[in-house]
């Protein structure tokens, strides 16, 4: 029995679609219900729908063997996992954003105040990569608000289309990381359940390749 942890929402739908293309029947996972565990005994699959930030935890502790989760969450949680496939969907960028006047002048502000949902990524970027001290303010949503009303100088957040930013006079100042959905595997499961996991990884990889080819052609 393989337990697969999916990040609730759009990512879960896309992951299910891909699994189906790879030849796994996901009727159980698509069931519209309030059940948290969706089991398909015949195929030996069990799906759990979890909050994205919790997916790496389920997988690291071995409560789930496999997880599908965004790279942003993986970077933020910093768990010990095997990260085996870049699924190519759920694409976006983790960026430092702020008032567009700051473009190219970010380094002129000392001791920046940075609002973010991702304090670990922010700390790693500024302290380890850029070697500067920052004051991090953890927020839970509508991060764009913070520089507008003076809570912080800049923000670190996910940018998909950038529409919210532009409409509020903000812009991307620096890119921290490219984000997309990843398949992660528990390190023990990779050994102990290799006969089930490896074929799944191979099948998924093949589908991702096909998907990427189609994208190129389009």
């Amino acid at each position, binding site marked *: 029995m393989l337990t697969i942890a999916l990040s609730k929402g759009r990512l879960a739908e896309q992951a299910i679609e891909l699994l189906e293309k790879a030849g796994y029947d996901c009727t159980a996972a698509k069931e519209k219900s309030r059940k948290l565990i969706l089991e398909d005994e015949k195929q030996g699959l069990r799906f759990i729908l979890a909050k994205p930030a919790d997916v790496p935890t389920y997988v690291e502790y071995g409560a789930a063997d496999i997880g599908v989760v965004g790279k942003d969450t993986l970077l933020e949680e910093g768990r010990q996992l095997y*990260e085996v496939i870049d699924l190519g969907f759920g694409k976006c960028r983790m960026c430092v954003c702020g008032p567009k006047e700051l473009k190219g002048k970010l380094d002129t502000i000392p001791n920046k105040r940075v609002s973010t949902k991702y304090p670990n990524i922010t700390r790693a970027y500024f302290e380890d990569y850029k070697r500067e001290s920052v004051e991090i303010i953890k927020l839970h949503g509508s991060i764009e608000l913070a520089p507008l009303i003076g809570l912080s100088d800049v923000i670190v957040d996910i940018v998909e289309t950038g529409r919210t930013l532009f409409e509020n006079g903000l812009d991307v100042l620096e890119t921290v990381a490219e984000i997309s959905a990843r398949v992660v595997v528990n390190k*023990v499961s990779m050994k*102990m359940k290799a006969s089930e996991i490896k074929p799944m990884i191979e099948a998924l990889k093949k589908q991702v390749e096909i998907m990427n080819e189609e994208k190129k052609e389009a």
Partner: protein
Amino acid sequence: MGNNRFYTPDGFSDVLPGICEFKKEAEGKLRTLFGLNGYSEIETPGIEYTDIYMDNEYVPAQNLYKLCDQKGRLITIRYDGTIPASRFAATIYKDEEPPLRLCYIENMYRYEQVGGGKQSEFTQAGVELMGSSGSAADAEVIALAIESALEIGIKDLQISIGQTKLFSGFMEGLKIDKESSDKIRNAINQKDVVTLEKTASDIGLSEEDKETLLMFSESQGTYDVIEAMRGRIKNDTAVAALDNLKEILDILDDYGYLKYVSIDLGLLGSDYYTGVIFKGFTYEVGFPILGGGRYDNVVGTFGRDMEAVGFSLGLSLAIIALMRQGMEPEASKPEVIIGYDIDIEGSRKAAIALKQQMVAEGTRVILDTQGYTQEALEKYADDNGIETCIFIDETKEEA
């Protein structure tokens, strides 16, 4: 008064009678196994100067339980078995002829994220074989690791074996900068093929070298993996590492343990390891239950150059795995309860004599302390599953 007096700190827990009994028995079995294989048990202090862990930078500082002694020196609660044993071998045992075979069964203390079977306080049983280099020593320790896991009842066991010098030797041959090299190392550690391929392309590696790197990340097998690698590496260090792996497999085959073993070249470990590295896995826990490898530079940091290889089994984690696999440890029950009528002179003495005799014979027996009547005693015995109930209500004249 704080509110914390009812609880144990995070990562620390009581061990209940059934589990405790199983654990102590398992410790006994491991102690016997280590002893029969020529390993002498040592006890290192529960607290050491923090310097023993910090001067060699093998241990992350934030994971140590640190205190101050009365003179303001930093001291640390026992973090692992290997580093104190290395200190011991290089100082107290400095004149002892190698090889040294040392073992320990102790509680370790680490500030780590708790969960998935991990605790901050946990018992490890381990051995260190010091002053012996080469595959024979490596294989002896791996074989003992396998036997330890089997001895305590782990049936589904898989040991992954790697060789840190194979990777470092190969990378040396590539002559690339440290940043890219670290990136590749991380990617292999996480089996992150995407980053691996991208980094390899970015620094302009040949197709063949790229394939070799992918083999580090993905290969799993035994002799086939070693042979597949052989034509691809030229670096002397890496070739020697590959020979070492092959010899280890040969010796483990002589032991009859090849079925538990596979080669995982992606096991790279930290700078601490300087040769073979291995981990042991079973079902139902998210972390390896045992691990070890060769650490030739550690004893040297204490002033005596000595190669060494060792392993430790996480006994607490292994027991959690066994329980999740269906084992239900139960505390042994008393077999006999003895009561007596206090009003009859001499009955207590007779009861005590009987108890002492039974204990000497190896029977689990309790003497009633509640003043039960015969009827109450029988009911108590019934309710608690005690097979034999003896009530003494007459004076037995001793012959």
